[in-house]
């Protein structure tokens, strides 16, 4: 309970006037009188979780400041450890408060796998434009159920969620804890391996037949998974499979992808392809990445199409091919392979829709 400030000085504000130095005010009290602008800047540095759990509840004026819609335009709920320790219902409730406080100004929402279809609907119904999630394959199925008409799916992550791997580790731990002897584990067959690598791809193929744009850079899918997607997403126009180390660019793949307008197999090509959807959202240090998103949103805004059915606002906008004159097709992309290991490292852990 150690109070660092001296309360005795409360009364000796003899020279106080409008422009007096804060030093002449009672210590401690002045933090509650911090103007909205500097307080917002502090809150921005804290992020949504900290505002919701701590700083946004400190005193009357801080509570009011925490409800400023501007604070909730870009909400990143991916990186705070609380996300992993609280139960899903609580985290979703926090996300809803974040959406409510944005008063319709939220532009992007970054989430971990706590997202439920309920929350997804909640956010979608409020017109949030960008929505980012880490991925289990079930999530694609879940999206397919709520939004089978989804046209753009952009995913870019550091480590793909490998449920199988996690299950194995848990089983192993369980065995160790129970004192079982290490069981000889069956060697995984090649088929099983491929099925596991293509779990995400198959889920996409199964659930999202209306896709126009798909970015799955860094995914584990193999050619088989890719063909499944191509077969079941006949409208696909823009595909980014850079850093997908299991994909082999061969003649068959090139033939099958020939009808795509934009086909990217290496990050290098993104610079050459004038497609607004080939911009990657990446999280830079601190707030820099917000600018990046804004840019990205602007680009999306330009390509906004009017034939959107409109029922979900700007959420999941339709993809429209670039129309400005300098949007000439990029160079011949089919000759570039993604086998260059230099490009496997700089991958980020966000999913975007």
């Amino acid at each position, binding site marked *: *309970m*150690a*109070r*660092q*400030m001296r*309360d005795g000085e*409360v009364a000796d504000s003899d020279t106080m006037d409008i*422009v007096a*130095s*804060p*030093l002449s005010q*009672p*210590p*401690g*009290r*002045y*933090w*509650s009188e*911090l*103007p909205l*602008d*500097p307080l917002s*800047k*502090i809150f*921005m*540095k*804290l992020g949504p979780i*900290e505002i*919701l*759990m*701590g*700083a946004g*509840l*400190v*005193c*009357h004026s801080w*509570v009011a400041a925490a409800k400023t819609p501007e604070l909730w335009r870009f909400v990143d709920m991916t990186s705070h450890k609380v996300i992993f320790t*609280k139960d899903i219902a*609580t985290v979703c*409730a*926090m996300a809803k*408060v974040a959406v409510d406080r944005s008063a319709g100004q939220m532009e992007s929402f970054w989430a971990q796998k706590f997202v439920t279809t309920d929350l997804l609907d909640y956010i979608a119904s409020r017109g949030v434009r960008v929505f980012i999630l880490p991925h289990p394959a079930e999530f694609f199925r879940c999206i397919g159920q709520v939004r089978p008409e989804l046209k753009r799916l952009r995913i870019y992550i550091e480590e793909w969620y490998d449920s199988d791997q996690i299950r194995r580790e848990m089983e192993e731990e369980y065995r160790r804890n129970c004192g079982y002897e290490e069981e000889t584990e069956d060697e995984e067959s090649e088929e099983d391996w491929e099925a596991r690598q293509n779990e995400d791809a198959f889920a996409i193929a199964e659930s999202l037949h209306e896709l126009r744009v798909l970015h799955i850079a860094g995914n584990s899918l193999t050619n088989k998974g890719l063909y499944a997607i191509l077969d079941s997403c006949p409208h696909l126009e823009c595909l980014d499979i850079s850093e997908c180390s299991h994909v082999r660019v061969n003649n068959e793949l090139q033939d099958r992808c020939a009808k795509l307008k934009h086909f990217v197999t290496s990050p290098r090509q993104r610079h050459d392809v004038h497609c607004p959807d080939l911009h990657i959202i990446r999280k830079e240090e601190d707030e820099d990445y917000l600018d990046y998103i804004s840019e990205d949103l602007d680009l999306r805004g330009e390509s906004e199409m009017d034939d959107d059915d409109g029922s979900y606002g700007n959420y999941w906008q339709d993809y429209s091919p670039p129309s400005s004159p300098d949007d000439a097709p990029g160079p011949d992309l089919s000759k570039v392979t993604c086998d260059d290991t230099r490009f496997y490292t700089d991958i980020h852990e966000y999913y975007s829709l």
Partner: protein
Amino acid sequence: MAAPESGDGNNGAARMVTLISSDNTRFEVEAAAASLSQTLQLTILDGGGGGGDGIPLPNVDSATLSKVLEYCIKHAPAAANGGAPNATAVDRAELERFDNEFVNIDQSVLYSLIMAAHNLEIEGLQSLVAKKVADMIKGKSPMEIRRTLGFPDPTPEEQAEMNAHMLEYGWAYE
């Protein structure tokens, strides 16, 4: 950028301006450093602050102003390079070291800096002090934040309001 040379007696040298704190202390500083303040920049571009005039800053006391200017002088060269795209890693590391050291200060000084950076609109400084406060209160419950920043004990009304919020947002740090 052809600001008129006011007769500040610094021919050939960098243009200087004079700032006057609330307690009437005069600070002479390079215009480039003072211009980190958006508020001052316009005045300086108009040729103000030179000679015997000086720009009065009724909201900033001398102790705070001297601290603010320390920041501005350190950061002015980088800012002049347009955010210093060609700054070396060494330069950046040095600025970072300076910044860390700079905000290692008493809370009341920190508060004064926040207000000064706000009033003078010095973007880099605003961000730096906000980060410092955020680091101080991160991971803390509302009560812990109050203690950390030396808030007075809540009045019964305040306590009731806080309790109500804690109840409404059941996930708050305890």
